[in-house]
C-alpha cells in the first residue's frame, strides 16, 4: 500500500497495461487505456491472474467483479487509487 501512495494514475495504468500485454500476448504500446477489457481480449479467466498480480504487487484486496465494474485500464486504476490509496 505504501507503493500505491506514491504512485500516479499514469504509473498504475502502465502497470495494468503491462499485465494485460503479458496475458493476451499483445504489445504494451498498442493498448489503449480507455478501451474496454473485453475489447482488449480479456475474459473472466484471463482477468483472474491480472487481478491477483495487482493484489500481490500493491497489497490491496480486490474482488473478481471489481475488474468488470470498472472495465477499462484507466477506470480501474482510478478505482484502485481512490479505494485503497
Amino acid at each position, binding site marked *: 500500500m505504501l507503493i500505491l501512495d506514491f504512485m500516479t494514475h499514469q504509473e498504475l495504468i502502465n502497470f495494468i497495461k503491462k499485465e494485460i500485454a503479458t496475458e493476451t500476448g499483445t504489445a504494451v504500446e498498442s493498448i489503449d487505456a480507455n478501451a474496454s477489457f473485453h475489447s482488449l481480449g480479456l475474459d*473472466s*479467466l*484471463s482477468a*483472474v*491472474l491480472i*487481478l*491477483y498480480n495487482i493484489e500481490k504487487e500493491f497489497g490491496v484486496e480486490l*474482488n*473478481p*467483479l471489481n475488474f*468488470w*465494474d470498472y*472495465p477499462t485500464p484507466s477506470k480501474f486504476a482510478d478505482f484502485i487509487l481512490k479505494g485503497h490509496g
Partner: protein
Amino acid sequence: MGNLLWSPLDPAHINDPYLMYKRLRHESPVYRSQTGEYIITRYADVKSILKNTDYRTGNRLEWLSRGITYFKNRDEDFTDIYKAINSFILFLNAPDHGPIRNMVVKAWSDREVHEMITTTADEILKDLNGTFDLVNDYARELPAIVIARIMGIPMNDYRYLQKLGVSMISSLNLYHSWKDFVELNEASALFVKYFAELLDAKQKNPDRGLVSRLLAANEKEKLLRQEQLISVLIFLFVAGEETTGASIGTSLRNIIQHDIKYNGNVDELFRFDPVVQILGRITKTDSIVNGVNIPANSALTLVVGSANRDESQFPNPDIIDVNRSAGQHLSFGYGTHFCLGEWLGKLQTQIAIERFFIAFKDITIPDQNIEWNTNLSVRVMKSLIVNAKK
C-alpha cells in the same frame, strides 16, 4: 458502483441482498451483468427456466474446467478441482444426471433419522449455556454429525471434513479469484484422498451407512468410475452439512430477531431467507426470457432469493408470516434438479429449531452486525453470538 444494478460481492448486499433484488425485479428483470451473464430475478421466469430442460446446468463446472485448462498453460495444475467436482449432482445433465441421481435416491432408503437428529441436537445443546456462538457451536455442528452418521463417516473425522467443506462449497461461487482456485484445489485433493481411503475401508468392512450402500449399488449397476463415485460422496457430504448448517443458523436468527411466534411453518423461513440464493443455467439455443433475446450458450444466473420475494407471487414478501402457505418457494430448486436432500434439510432445520427453543429461553443477539461469508451463492453467517438461559 451506485449505478450498477448487480453488485453481489458488495458486503452490504451479502448482508441484505433483497433491496438489490427488488430493484432488479422492477427495473430490469432480465439484466445483462457487467460480466455478460443474464441475471433473472422474477419468480415466474426463474421457475419456468428451472422447469425447462432446454437449459442445461453446470455453469461453474464448465467455467472451472475451462480455468483448469487455461492455467495449465501457465504451469499451474488445478486438476484436483475437477477430480472433486466432476460428478456433483447439481452440475450434471442428461443423460448422466438421471441414472446417477436415481442410484443415490434408491441407495438412500433409510430415512428413519428423526430420532437420531433429535438425540444429536440435545447432546449438543446440553453443553451450551450463557454466551455462545449459535452458528459454529450448534447450527453447523448438528448437520455435520448427522450426515457423517448417515454416510458412515467415523465421528473422529467430521470436523476435519467440515473445515475442508468451507473451501469446497466455494466451487459454487459466482466468481472466483486466484486464491479461490488455490484453496479449492487444496481442499479438493484432501477430500479426494479421504474418500478414496474411506471407500477402501468400506470395501473391506461394509456397514449399513450410505457410503457402503452406494458402493454396493454401484458394483451392481457399474454406473460410476471410482473418480465419479468419490465426487458424488464429496457432494453428498458438503451439500448435507454446509447448506443445512446455514439454514439452521439463518432460520434461528430470523425467529429471534423478528420475534416470530414460530408455529412449525419452516417453509416460510426457507422462503424468506434461502441459503442457496442463486442457481445457474446455460441456454442451449437462442432463447427469449421475459421478452429479452438471449443467444445460445449464455450463462443465466437465476436468483432464487429474489423469486422468493417476488410480490406477484407472495404478497407482502418482506414480512415473515408464519400463517402464509409458502410451499411454492424455490429454495430447493424445481424440476429435475430439485434438491434430493430437501427432506433431510427441512427435517433437520425443523428439529433444530424445536429443540433449541425447548432448551433455551430469554435469547438475545447482543451484536446485530453480522459477518457473512463472501458470496451469495451459498449465504452463510460466519458466526452469531447469542445470550441464552436454560
